């Protein structure tokens, strides 16, 4: 029923193994799911299920042992500006001002200074930091740094924004605030977002769909559509019901193999 939406990112039987011979460990097995245009998808799973590895494979930072990652039908084989990435730790360059941190990608592309300035300010104001353009990363709070990282990832206008547990290092309140801001940014830019998180609550609050992974090897247990109106009320019965469902699903001792097929077909 979602077929009218263009499928943007597609994972086809992505597997990843580390090591060789007897010490060979399979961390990801036959991962299949897709992200549609304008959609927020969250990957959830117990720690050690390889969700960060999966995101890095999608970003092109690591190669899958087998399977393909397709972006608009083309194989992603190396990192590039078609995908924006927000890392777990902000990864801003400490010797550059906020403005230069955000503009660095545009500078590398040789975009004229005027245009660069305009675009940088546009995205900085979108994350509410236009006043901090001349400050340095160490002068900002953790939440502000992550906002800068989001602005930086957006300046090159990627097709898809990848986020690797982007708010896990932030305190509770900051986290709540930045979650709302991300939804706003997403609404304004219409960008598809694929994020990895270990917070079920965060995933249900933000995402249109959840991809639940099992651990060792990581496999898709289930893909779940979250059909709640925004802004979502974290205390609403439906929200809590989803939360419980996901919790049970992740804790389930059911052999993941038996649920794998149903999982990818769920949407």
């Amino acid at each position: 029923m979602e077929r009218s939406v263009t499928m943007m990112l597609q994972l086809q039987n992505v597997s990843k193994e580390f090591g060789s011979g007897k010490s060979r460990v399979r961390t990801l097995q036959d991962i299949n799911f897709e992200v549609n245009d304008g959609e927020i998808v969250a990957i959830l799973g117990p720690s050690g299920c390889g969700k960060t590895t999966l995101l890095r494979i999608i970003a092109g930072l690591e190669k899958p042992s087998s399977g393909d990652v397709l972006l608009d039908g083309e194989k992603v084989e190396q990192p590039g500006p078609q995908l924006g990435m927000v890392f777990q730790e902000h990864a801003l360059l400490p010797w550059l001002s906020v403005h230069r941190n955000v503009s660095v990608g545009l500078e590398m592309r040789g975009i004229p200074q005027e245009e660069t300035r305009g675009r940088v300010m546009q995205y900085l104001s979108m994350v509410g930091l236009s006043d901090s353009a001349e400050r340095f990363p160490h002068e900002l709070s953790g939440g502000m740094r992550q906002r800068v990282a989001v602005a930086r990832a957006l300046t090159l206008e990627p097709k898809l924004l990848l986020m690797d547990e982007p708010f896990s290092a932030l305190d509770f309140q900051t986290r709540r605030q930045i979650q709302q801001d991300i939804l706003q940014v997403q609404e304004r830019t219409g960008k598809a977002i694929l994020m990895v998180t270990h917070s079920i609550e965060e995933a249900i609050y933000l995402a249109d769909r959840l991809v639940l992974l099992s651990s060792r090897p990581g496999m898709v247990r289930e893909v779940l559509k979250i059909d709640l109106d925004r802004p979502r009320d974290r205390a609403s019965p439906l929200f809590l019901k989803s939360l419980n469902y996901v919790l049970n699903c992740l804790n389930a001792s059911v052999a993941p193999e038996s649920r794998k097929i149903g999982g990818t077909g769920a949407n």
Partner: protein
Amino acid sequence: MNRRTLLKLVIPLAIIMLWEALSIFIHNQFILPNIRSVLQVLLSPGTDIMGSGSLIENALMSLQRVGLGFLVATCLAVPLGVAMGRWEPLKEAFDGIVSALRPVPPLAWVPLALAWLKIGLASIVFIIALGAFFPVLLNTMQGVRGVKKNWIEAITMMGAKEHDLMVRVILPAAAPEIWTGMRIGFGIAWMCVVAAEMLPGTSTGLGYLIMYAYSWGQIQVVMAGMIAIGFIGIIIDRFFVSVERRWLSWRGL
């Protein structure tokens, strides 16, 4: 004056007093000249000393040599260090030879330097460059290897090629450590130049001046020369530190 400055002055003052007392007690200017005679040399740094040039002239000569040797060392060690830090195979290939040569004191190279380059500027520069080379190389390599993977990946995601990575991430990120290597390297180079100037065939520089003055029994000139060497060393080190504080201080944040 606060307590800390007072504390810092205690030992130097005690040494000066002990020196003066001993010089009076020993009463032999060929062993320990008194402070006044040393100060006399230091306070007229432009005066010619027994036909071998003034303190300033000789200091400039030494500085020129050390500058040249240091420049050669930096120009070789920084690119090699960056390459070794960035590409593991290159590090593997060079590791053995570097760890074999590093413990050899620069002065042990003197005979070879003389045999290959003859007496003169080239062999002195060679010795100095050897002294400065390894600290710069190792610190540069360490600095490049220590660049956060996160930074590199973040810039790579924006479509950076190796050249962009080098200019925008790796060199700036490693700059504080490269600079520290240069600071240590310059300190060693400064020690090497003085020692190299004591070699036969040299007739200028602070090292030469000290040896020359010694052969004429002018111990007050020897001591004045030593103080000058120490003083110049401190000034240059301060310069390195202040540049680090001004431009490269983001590391400590």
